């Protein structure tokens, strides 16, 4: 299990302990213990799309467009192509970077950006957590150790889901430790 006492992160910043971050509704005595993001392998789809886009763009610019367009049009095409590809990459990066699960010493927070214009913020206190389940499935999930963590809460409170996050067993262990701490020191 990760050492919770000191700050650290994995290679891709998708599992950060005690990071230097803050969030909008953070309370004064609330301390961020863990921040998790989707495993980078789950972002492979848009990375592959980008590579395909680059290949198609270069092919169009070098082989197809010169047949019927003057050189200045091809230059403009490359300008458009590079900037649009950059925007596609940047948008997907932003959505990955800001869709986070945050575990503090008081709450568990799920911050989802479905698209740039739509944000979903779900939070529950550690005391309200009644059950935590993890599921790791598939070849990539088992091999690279990532999966889902479902945090169920008492009553009609909304459940929290961290999807495709790395080291799900460690996340459960951290939440269990926090639950035990709160039970011992109410």
């Amino acid at each position, binding site marked *: 299990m990760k050492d919770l006492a000191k700050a650290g992160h994995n290679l891709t910043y998708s599992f950060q302990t005690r990071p230097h971050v803050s969030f909008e509704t953070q309370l004064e005595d609330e301390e961020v213990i863990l921040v998790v993001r989707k495993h980078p392998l789950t972002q492979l789809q848009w990375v592959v799309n980008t590579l395909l886009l680059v290949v198609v763009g270069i092919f169009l610019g070098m082989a197809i467009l010169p047949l019927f367009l003057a050189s200045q049009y091809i230059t403009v095409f490359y*300008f458009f192509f590079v900037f649009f590809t950059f925007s596609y990459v*940047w948008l997907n990066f*932003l959505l990955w970077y800001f869709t986070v699960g945050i575990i503090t010493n008081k709450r568990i927070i799920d911050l989802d950006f479905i698209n740039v214009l739509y944000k979903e913020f779900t939070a529950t206190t550690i005391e309200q957590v009644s059950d935590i389940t993890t599921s790791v499935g598939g070849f990539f999930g088992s091999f690279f150790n990532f999966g889902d963590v479902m945090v169920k809460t008492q009553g009609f409170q909304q459940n929290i889901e961290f999807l495709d996050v790395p080291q799900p067993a460690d996340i459960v262990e951290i939440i269990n430790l926090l639950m035990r701490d709160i039970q011992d020191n109410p």
Partner: protein
Amino acid sequence: MEQIISFFTDTDSSQLLVLFVKAFAVLFSVLYLVYAVIITRQSQEMNKTFSSPMGPFIFFMSFVQIVFAIILIYVSIVLL
């Protein structure tokens, strides 16, 4: 009306194609500018919701898109 008709009858097809490409290039660059402004504004909101040491870099990279859009508008008008 006659001027419009004569414009389409007197100009050859290559000139029409140039006009068509230029109009589309300008239109798309203006739309890209709108998109870039929205992304920059939203990345500011995202940074406010979840602040990290990467915040200034994220804002800068989003702002770069506005510069890109202005370059696109310039290129569409001047180069074409």
